[in-house]
């Protein structure tokens, strides 16, 4: 079997001998040329390794015989057509080499389990520690990468980095941040945030200094953090409570009657680049236009069976913009002013508007909108008691 395999690999030639085959075979044997499958009879011949055939004519001349090739077999002859197409074996060899080299690299980094941490931030951290597409697999230590990423993201409770094939997988679980309890331990008072009349007064801790039905002004002390017990001892507490009061609030918004619009003129410049193993290969030669143009970027990664490949197309589309001034109609300006006031109201917690009155003025190209509202809201605002301790 091994002999046959060697004969196939090196190639073999079957030839016919005319003349005296005995003399020719003897001559070959004396010259050390190995023959096999020697045939006798009317068409005597033998097999020889293809590379040694060129030695036979000398033996044939010496033994006054003639030779004629009958058959050629083996790898050198079956791949003879490739000699005219040198690109094919070269390409196959280069392809095999490329496959070998690429299989030693990380092709993609896949992340799962992110909730609040931005993926870009995690990928930037991965890049800093060398876990990027194009990195050599032998240089990536998953355990070390895991530890370094855990140090960079302290709110991650659990993380694992695995390499499988040519992909690196990062799986993590984010933890719940511990609330800051130090603010609840500092001594503080509760003061009125705005002026109003108290409708509901609940004291959770501290000494109540106001009562339901009282009218209070902004900044007035409602609950004191200084507590005196029945023995006359004084202690500082973190005063807390809920004080619902009837208040009057005024919200104002000034909207210019002209607005500057930025509109696209229709001229666009597209810049594409191919990202291959982290390398950016520009496909277009256009430069970034700069000011007066807005840009939108898209990154399209090539995926096969859900696995991201290290080949992606990055496209920037720059659109030329021109500024234009537009005069708002009174309705549009009023709508914008109402939206602004609603935004101010949304910023206030536990605000309930009972009734409101609008006032609209337009002067000097500006619409002034004023909303006076009667509200019910929690006016309790904690104010820390600053204690200068000699210790």
């Amino acid at each position: 079997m091994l002999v046959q395999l060697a004969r196939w690999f090196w190639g073999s030639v079957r030839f016919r001998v005319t003349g005296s085959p005995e003399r020719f075979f003897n001559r070959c044997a004396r010259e050390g040329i190995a023959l096999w499958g020697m045939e006798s009879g009317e068409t005597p011949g033998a097999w020889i390794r293809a590379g040694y055939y060129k030695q036979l004519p000398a033996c044939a001349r010496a033994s006054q015989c003639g030779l004629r090739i009958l058959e050629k077999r083996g790898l050198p002859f079956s791949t003879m057509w490739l000699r005219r197409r040198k690109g094919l074996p070269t390409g196959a060899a280069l392809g095999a080499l490329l496959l070998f080299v690429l299989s030693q690299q990380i092709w993609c980094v896949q992340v799962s389990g992110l909730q609040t941490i931005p993926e870009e931030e995690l990928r930037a951290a991965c890049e800093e520690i060398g876990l990027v597409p194009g990195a050599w697999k032998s240089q990536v230590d998953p355990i070390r990468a895991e530890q370094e990423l855990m140090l960079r993201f302290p709110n991650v409770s659990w993380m694992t980095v695995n390499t499988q094939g040519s992909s690196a997988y990062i799986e993590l679980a984010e933890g719940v941040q511990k609330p800051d309890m130090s603010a609840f331990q500092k001594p503080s008072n509760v003061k009125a945030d705005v002026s109003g009349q108290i409708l509901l007064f609940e004291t959770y801790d501290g000494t109540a200094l106001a009562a339901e039905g009282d009218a209070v002004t902004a900044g007035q002390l409602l609950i004191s953090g200084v507590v005196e017990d029945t023995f006359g001892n004084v202690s500082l507490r973190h005063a807390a409570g809920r004080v619902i009061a009837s208040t009057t609030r005024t919200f104002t918004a000034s909207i210019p009657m002209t607005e500057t619009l930025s509109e696209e003129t229709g001229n666009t410049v597209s810049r594409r680049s191919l990202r291959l193993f982290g390398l950016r290969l520009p496909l277009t030669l256009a430069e970034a236009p700069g000011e007066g143009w807005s840009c939108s970027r898209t990154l399209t990664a090539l995926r096969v069976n859900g696995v991201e490949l290290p080949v992606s197309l990055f496209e920037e589309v720059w659109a030329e913009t021109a500024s234009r001034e537009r005069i708002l109609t009174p309705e549009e300006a009023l709508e914008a002013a109402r939206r602004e006031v609603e935004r101010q109201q949304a910023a206030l917690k536990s605000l309930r508007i009972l009734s409101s009155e609008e006032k609209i003025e337009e002067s000097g190209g500006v619409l002034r909108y004023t909303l006076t509202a009667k509200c019910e809201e929690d006016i309790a605002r904690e104010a820390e008691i600053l204690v200068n301790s000699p210790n």
Partner: protein
Amino acid sequence: MEEQNTQHRGGLTLLHHAVGGCHIELLGNRQAVVEGSQGILEYGDDVVRVRAGKLAVRFRGRNLKIRCMTADSLVVEGFLLGMDFLT
């Protein structure tokens, strides 16, 4: 290897001097291994005649073939019917 061959050839030379012939091994009537041969004199389907020093050895049979051959040995295969020593 070369040394072994030299020793082997030396051994054959001694044998040759001792018995005046070559070393022939028969594997049943299917194969004959001839060591110390000096070439073939006749090669046919029925007869293979080999020169071995002062003697000539003739193998008779059917479908005789020389499987392989070197300068001082050869292997004859086929259905051997007889072997003659000719002077």
